[in-house]
Each structure stands twice: as C-alpha cells, then as structure tokens.
C-alpha cells in the first residue's frame, strides 16, 4: 500500500465531516429549493407551479408583516442585548468580590431552554405582573406583546454576549491603560478611546451572532404568544414552521425560506464588512 502524504491524510479526515454536512445540510437545502417551485402540501401528489410561490411572496400581506416584525424585533433586541451585555462585562471585569460566582450566575439563562424560559415568563406576564398592579398582561395587546418578546429574548441572549465581551476585555493589556492614564484618559474617555476600539472585533462578532439569532427567533414566540395577538408577533421562522409544516403550504414556505436564507447571508456579510473596517490593531 502506497504511503499517503500528510496532506492526503488530512483530506481523508475531512471526508466524514463533509459527508455529514452534505447529507444533513446541503441536501435538505437543495431539496427545499426544489420544493419551492411546487404547490407541495407536505404529503401526497403535487404539481410544479413555476415561480408562482415567489411572486406570491411579494404580495402576501402576512409574509410582509412577518418580515417587518422580525426586523423591528431583531434590531431592538440586538441593541438592548449588546448595550446591557457590554455594561455587565465591564462590571464583571472590574475588581469586584465574588467575580467568578457572579460570572457563573449571569451565564445561567443561556443554559436554560428557550421554551422553558418562555413558559416561565409567560406565567409572569399573564398572572404575576397584573397581580402586582402593573396593568393588564403585556402579551394580550398588539402594542406591547413584541416588547415582551424582546425582554425575554434579550434576557436569555445577554449571557452569551457578556461572556464574549469579558473575553474581549481580557485581551486588552494593562500597559495600554497605564500609558493612557499618564495622558489623563480615565473613566468614559478611557472606554471611548482605548477599550472600545480594542474590542471592536468582539463587538462585531457579537453583532453578527445576536442579529442572526434574533432574526431566527422561534422558541420564545412559540412559548409566549404563538404569533398572536392578531398575528402581530409572527416571526419569519415561526410562519415558515406554522404554515409550512402544519398549514399545508410546504412549497410556498420553502420559497419563503429560500428568500430568508439569502437575506440573512446578505446581512451577515454586510455587518462583517462594515465592522472590520473599524478594527484597530495594536
């Protein structure tokens, strides 16, 4: 048997991963793309309908509304998560007591399942907050339901964002601060001129990750509102699942999923390009 070169061995090692990725990721993607040109209900016989699904997408008010809601939600939740996450990271990176314990506690929401968190918050919104005299349930009004979802989603996402910011803050060497302090950079100026520019790579990865996660919001909606009240909190993923799997619109929602995939890729590429221009190297 001929001896394989080092490179060939590495290539061989990637094969199983490649096969798995292809079978569970690429193949479904291609199949979904094919179904998007049919009126497939999810079972039984179906016909090809050409690009009807795609033209319908742009005239469907429900789909349009779900895109609006998802973006409104994702932008606000990303801002809230990153601002609070950065503040928490600054605090947890300072010289405080019980630092490790606190870091552990702040990470707990990330470990809990999205549905569990959703159901617990659902109970709080429906029974506990009104009982405390804080008006009626936030989930029953079209004006406040989406904010309730932002609160729950951000509460859970902040954990991971904070963790990434903490690791970012630890990469900033102490001598930078010392040098800055001699020039009089303390407090806010220190953060604005020294800390933040040096952690921009972490800021950009956090922006991309949380934006992507929030655009694909699903668990929280499933547990809190099921898209209601009055279909005001239907995210794109929820609509694709709801109408594609249980509503007999498999073909149409496949088309929606294809468009949504392109949108997410475009946003991620844009964000990475935009923030990488602002990065500082020491």
């Amino acid at each position: 048997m001929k001896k394989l070169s080092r490179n060939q061995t590495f290539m061989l090692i990637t094969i199983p991963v490649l096969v798995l990725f292809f079978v569970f990721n690429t193949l479904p993607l291609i199949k979904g793309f094919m179904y998007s040109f049919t009126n497939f209900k999810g079972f039984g016989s179906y016909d090809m309908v050409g690009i009807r699904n795609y033209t319908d997408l742009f005239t469907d008010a429900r789909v349009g509304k779900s895109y609006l809601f998802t973006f409104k939600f994702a932008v606000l939740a990303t801002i809230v998560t990153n601002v609070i996450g950065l503040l928490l990271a600054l605090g947890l990176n300072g010289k405080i007591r019980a630092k490790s314990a606190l870091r552990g506690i702040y990470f707990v929401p990330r470990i809990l399942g999205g549905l569990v968190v959703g159901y617990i918050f659902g109970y709080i919104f429906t029974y506990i907050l009104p009982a405390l005299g804080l008006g009626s349930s936030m989930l029953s009004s079209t004006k406040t339901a989406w904010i309730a979802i932002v609160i729950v989603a951000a509460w859970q996402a902040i954990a991971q964002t904070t963790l990434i910011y903490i690791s970012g803050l630890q990469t900033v060497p102490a001598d930078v601060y010392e040098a800055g302090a001699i020039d009089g950079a303390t407090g806010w100026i220190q953060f604005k001129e020294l800390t933040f520019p040096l952690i921009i790579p972490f800021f950009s990865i956090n922006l991309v990750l949380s934006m992507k996660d929030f655009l694909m919001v699903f668990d929280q909606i499933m547990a809190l509102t099921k898209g209601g009240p009055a279909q005001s909190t239907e995210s794109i993923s929820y609509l694709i699942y709801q109408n594609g799997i249980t509503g007999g619109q498999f073909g149409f929602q496949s088309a929606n999923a294809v468009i949504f995939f392109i949108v997410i890729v475009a946003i991620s590429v844009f964000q990475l390009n935009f923030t990488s221009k602002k990065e500082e190297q020491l």
Partner: protein
Amino acid sequence: MRKKVIATTLVATTLVGTVLGLTGCGSDSRTADGKIHISMLQYKPEAVKAFEKMQEEFNATHDDIYLTIESPNDAMTVLRTRFIKEDVPDIIGIGGDVNYSNFLDAEMLMDISDFEGLSTIKQAYLDIDKNLEFVPLEGTYAVPYVANAAGVLYNREMFQENGWEIPTTWDEFMELCETIKASGQQPLYFGFKDVWTCLAPWNALAVDLAPADVCRQVNKGETLFANEYDDVAEKMLELLQYAQNDPFAYNYNDACTAFANGESAMYCIGSYAVPQIQSVNPDMDIDSFVMPGSNNADENILNSGVDLQFCVTADCEEKEAAYEVLSFLLEDSTIQTYLDDQNAVPCKDSTFKLPSSLDGMLGHINAGKMADYQDHYYPAEMSVDAQIQTFLLNQDVDAFLNKFDTDWVRYNRDIIRKVQEYEAQNAEGGNE
C-alpha cells in the same frame, strides 16, 4: 502512518454506515413472528389510556394479528412527516376536518365501501364526511367513530343555586348573561390567547346563522362571506361584552381552570374540554346547551362534527386484517371503553351510556338536528382562527369580512379551480 489511515477509514465508514443505516430502518419486518402487523396512529393524545386498553384487549383475543396503536402529541405533524418518509401506518385515526379533505385530495386513503361495519353508523355522520370531499368522490373513505358537540358548557350547581334557566333564543341568552353579570358573577370566560378557541363560539353561532354549505356556495361563486357571516361576527362581539377582563391574556388551559374553579358560570367550548376541566375539579357538575344563535328556537342547530374517524391508508397491504381491527373497534364494548374515558358522542347506531355533561344536548343529538363545524372547510394556512382573534381585538366587522373573502379566494384557488371544472363537467348531469 498506515495505522492512522486505517483508523480514519474505519471512522469514515462507520459514520457513513450510520447515515445510510438511518434511512434503512423504516421498513420493518412485517411477519417476523408469523403474525400480521397492523400499525395504527391516532391523533388524540388525551385518549391514550383508552387506546392502550383497546390494543391490549385486541392482542389478547387475536392470535394472527398484532396491533400497535400510537398516540403521539401533535400527531398531524408526525403523520405528515411519515407520509413524506413513505413510512405510512395502516390505519389512521384523525378528525373529520380539512386535513381529511387534504389527504383525500392527495389520494392517500383507501376506498373502504365494502367494509360491513359502515352499515351500523348513523347516516348523519356519513353525510358529514361525504361533505368534506372537495369534489364528490366515488366510495367511502372513513368510518366515523365518535363525534363531539360544541355549544355552551355551564356549571349546573351555579345555575340551580341561582335559579337561572337555560336559554333557547339569542335574546334569552343575552338576558341571562345580563342577569349573571348583575348578580356580581362572571357570565363567560374565554381563552382567546390560544387562537383556536376563538373558533368554538364562532362555529356554534355559524351553524345557527349561516347555511351549512356556505363554503361550497362561495367556491361556486354564488355568494360572499360578507353576506353570510355578518350576523355571526356581530354576535361574537356581543358575547365579548360578557367575557372576563382581558380575555386575550388567557389561554385554553387558563380558561378551563377558571371555569373548573367556578370563576364563570358558562364557557363557550366543545364537549372535548370536559376531561380537561374535570382534571382540575373532578367533582364538578357540568352540563351543556346548544348555542342559541338565532331568535327562532327552531333554527338553533347543534354544532357537532366527527371528532375521530378511522381511515385505511392506500398503501396498506393487509386490508382484511385492517378490517378486522376496524370491526373490533366498532364493537359496543370497545366504544363504551372510549366513551367512559373521553367525553364524546358515538357515531354508531346503538345504545350507549352517555356522559351527563351532554344532558342538555340529548334532544338535538337524538333528533339528528346537527351540522358540522364550518371551520372543517377552512384551509389551515388561511388561519381563520387568528383572523377572528384580530377582528375581536379591533372590532371592525366590515374589514374582517372583506379580508375573509379576499383571502379565501387566494388560499383556495387550486380547489376553486377544481370545483369549477367539476361543475362544468357535471352541469348537464344535474349531480347537485
């Protein structure tokens, strides 16, 4: 180096093997133990205990057939997934609703008109199933098993204590709500956070106030929902006045719990909610009455549909064995097992002990004065339930019904085309 290569190849083959193996394990050996295996999937997880009992009894009395019954949560999704995987159960237990129509349309079910048990089923229920076919088909495709009835559940104890009378017309009903409200108690409780619960009062009112075949009439282009559902929508709004504070904050479970705890005198929902209510308060004395939508008591019809029916799938290879299972399920004692566990109306024409929570509806049931749920004809992707919720929130009748008409045409165009083709073909035959 060579060891490494071997190791990698091994890992690679195992992984690929796993992947291929996964796809291979769908087709099981049918007759490994010499018995014919019949698999059945039914969509009511709340009835899992009754079905386990039936399965046990069947397997104890049959040597040649082995029956397995699955009762998964969210069975419709499971079923659709299995249809895609082409791993189809032999018998399916589903509701008589639009899913059944879709399965028929997709040619997934077998014609079982030669099954003898069909002759024991009440004609009214066979007709209800017949109406669910988008275009009339030859043959019979389902055995109606049990029906449910929707109207108004009431707390019998509260009614007796206060001397309230059961209403038979809409004005009496509104008067009763007013009386209850004036006495400082809560007339109605809704769980409108779960959109599907909006359909319960909607359906019950619609059978009283709109023609039974309204959807078919619209598909033929003879009328509009704006004309037929006007009254239904107005009366939904009237009901809302007597609901608890902020009915959109509470879901189905919340509403069942509140009603079980005596927080309201009545609850507009179907008989299927009774087991859930009794799980909270086992001693509660529940009765029900027909939703009095019209002011002419004779026009008030019971809203009853096929809650569970059995179909044999087109791919089933063991038709005789499947019929044997169906015959067993239709035995009086088997049906009684189901009735004792679940709150339901049997479709078989025989004498059964019915639960006391149906007392107030017996007159209508025995007279066969009932009509199917209208939402059984609505396409699922149109989400009529959510549209009703939207309407109840913004209270704009015209906007709601106009959207109903526009959406109907958009979501049903394939069916409307089919119906109109069928009508054109059969215009001379006078089949209608």
